[in-house]
């Protein structure tokens, strides 16, 4: 158990901050509204072109052979203002007017219209700029784009493909915030895309140790008296113990729930024994002395933190001991008094 505690503590020191970041980023990603993150909240419905007359449309064989060579797909489909051929190769695609056979390009003006039509939020386009995907906000694409920047409160940017005129991405503050948390979550600080990276694998492997040792420690941290509320309909057995503080004239009697943790039970009565670790059996400060005759056996932690001679005199750690019937405890001079001083409600 001592080893487990040490392991838990040191692994915690090593990766505790990342564990906190995982939980925090996971929570933030869950809390952010997906409709806002994706921009779908402010995207207008564009009606499907539907069936259109195919009059005077060029045939597949009218396409320039240089463009159709090694194509993976060729599609004749309706688009704004007529029919287009979309020729897809493994690494690029091109659009050709099915009316006059010219290669179609989306101009900045076209992109302005497309983006304006798409955006249903509160704001106008403040600027349009050209760029090349992939970059941070267009990392799933590989083609030149137009970026339309909107003046809305969420700083929306709509990316329009220079080739097809299609909307590639809708980005806004919600997405950008989520993306930072996503980066922290998958620990890919440059591309924010690759979650199979070595760093996260190592940290996750280490974190499993933290989790496993933590689960094992649970078995030591709880005893059956922690679950007193489950039995006897909440009626708990209280016993009287005696406290002797050399700075006080007489003994003080206290009623405590049997089996409860001595350190916590005393703290509940504003008797604050010194402690750094809050009752974890780590700092060794919450020492009390039993009558040698009724001192319980010292556990491993106490053996490590209290010298043998003092243990033989009945010195133990309050955080490692339970309340028993009729015990008498010697506590450091002034503890009761200082406890009374700091107590606010109880007399």
């Amino acid at each position, binding site marked *: 158990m001592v080893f487990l505690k040490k392991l838990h503590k040191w692994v915690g020191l090593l990766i505790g901050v990342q564990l906190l970041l995982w939980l925090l980023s996971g929570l933030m990603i869950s809390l952010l509204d997906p409709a806002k993150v994706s921009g779908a909240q402010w995207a207008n419905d564009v009606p499907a072109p539907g069936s259109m007359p195919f009059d005077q449309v060029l045939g597949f064989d009218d396409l320039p052979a240089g463009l159709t060579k090694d194509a993976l797909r060729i*599609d004749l489909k309706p688009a704004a203002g007529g029919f287009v051929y979309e020729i897809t190769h493994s690494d690029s695609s091109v659009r050709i007017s099915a009316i006059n056979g010219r290669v179609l390009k989306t101009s900045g003006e076209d992109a302005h219209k497309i983006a304006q039509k798409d955006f249903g939020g509160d704001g106008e386009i403040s600027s349009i700029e050209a760029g090349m995907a992939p970059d941070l906000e267009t990392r799933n694409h590989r083609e030149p784009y137009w970026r339309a920047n909107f003046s809305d409160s969420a700083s929306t940017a709509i990316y329009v493909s220079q080739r097809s005129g299609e909307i590639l991405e809708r980005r806004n503050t919600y997405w950008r915030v989520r993306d930072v948390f996503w980066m922290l979550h998958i620990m890919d600080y440059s591309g924010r895309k690759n979650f199979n990276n070595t760093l996260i694998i190592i940290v996750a492997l280490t974190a499993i140790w933290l989790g496993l040792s933590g689960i094992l420690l649970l078995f030591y941290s709880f005893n059956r008296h922690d679950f007193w509320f489950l039995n006897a309909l909440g009626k708990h057995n209280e016993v009287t113990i005696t406290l002797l503080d050399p700075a006080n004239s007489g003994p003080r009697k206290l009623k405590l729930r049997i089996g409860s943790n001595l350190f916590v039970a005393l703290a509940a009565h504003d008797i604050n024994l010194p402690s*750094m670790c809050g009752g974890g059996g780590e700092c060794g400060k919450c020492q009390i002395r039993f009558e040698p005759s009724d001192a319980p056996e010292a556990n491993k932690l106490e053996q490590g933190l209290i010298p043998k001679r003092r243990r033989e005199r009945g010195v133990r750690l309050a955080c490692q001991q339970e309340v028993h019937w009729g015990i008498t405890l010697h506590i450091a001079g002034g503890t009761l008094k200082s406890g009374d001083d700091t107590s606010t409600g109880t007399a």
Partner: protein
Amino acid sequence: MIKRGNILARTLHKWIGLIVGLQILIWLTSGLYMVIVDIDFIHGDPLVKNMQQTVEVPDPSKIGLPELLGQFPDTEQIGLRAVMGETYYLVTTVSDRWLIDPQTGAIHSPLNEETVRKIARFHFNGDASITNVSLIESSPPMEIQTRPLPLWRVDFDDRYSTSFYIDPQSGRLATRRHQYWRIFDFLWMLHIMDYKERADAHSVLLISAQVSGLIFAVTGLWLLFYSFSGRRKKQTTGK
């Protein structure tokens, strides 16, 4: 004050650990699987071949646009697709899609089991035999629940329990699934705690667990800080 905080931190850490400790361990293990197993492998990239076939523009003297439009007056879109190395027209009408032979005009879709077996063989990167072929028209298995139906399912007798899903209208390999994908999907379900749809990462259950987990981590770090600062103090005072 700090001492009081420490006791509270320890109590919270202990009790939240009891309540959501298992979920935190599940987050860690499912996350570990997802980061360790290469995502391209999960997507089944090594299981397939011939995924980039090129098309040839057909001879318009046989079947061209006029013939196709005559046969399907409610056409919305016409494409060229390669199926097992051969080019076909793929005609999208208001109601469906049709695979047409550009030489004869014969309608190939919906594809029969024999053709589907051949397509599956054509794309499967291995020698394993096919154990089962079935047409799924309704109540799809979990692994293709968001896909449009119908789909042919072709199961292979390989070490990954690979299944191919082939579109009977276009002959396209719509998707592929295998054992490690299924494990990934199951762990993803545990990770986002959506045990029904495996898709909603914004549920009240998940958020409550996350908030508890966050308190758990903060109290853990709090305890860690004081346990190490206590150690330093002990040394400097020489006790």
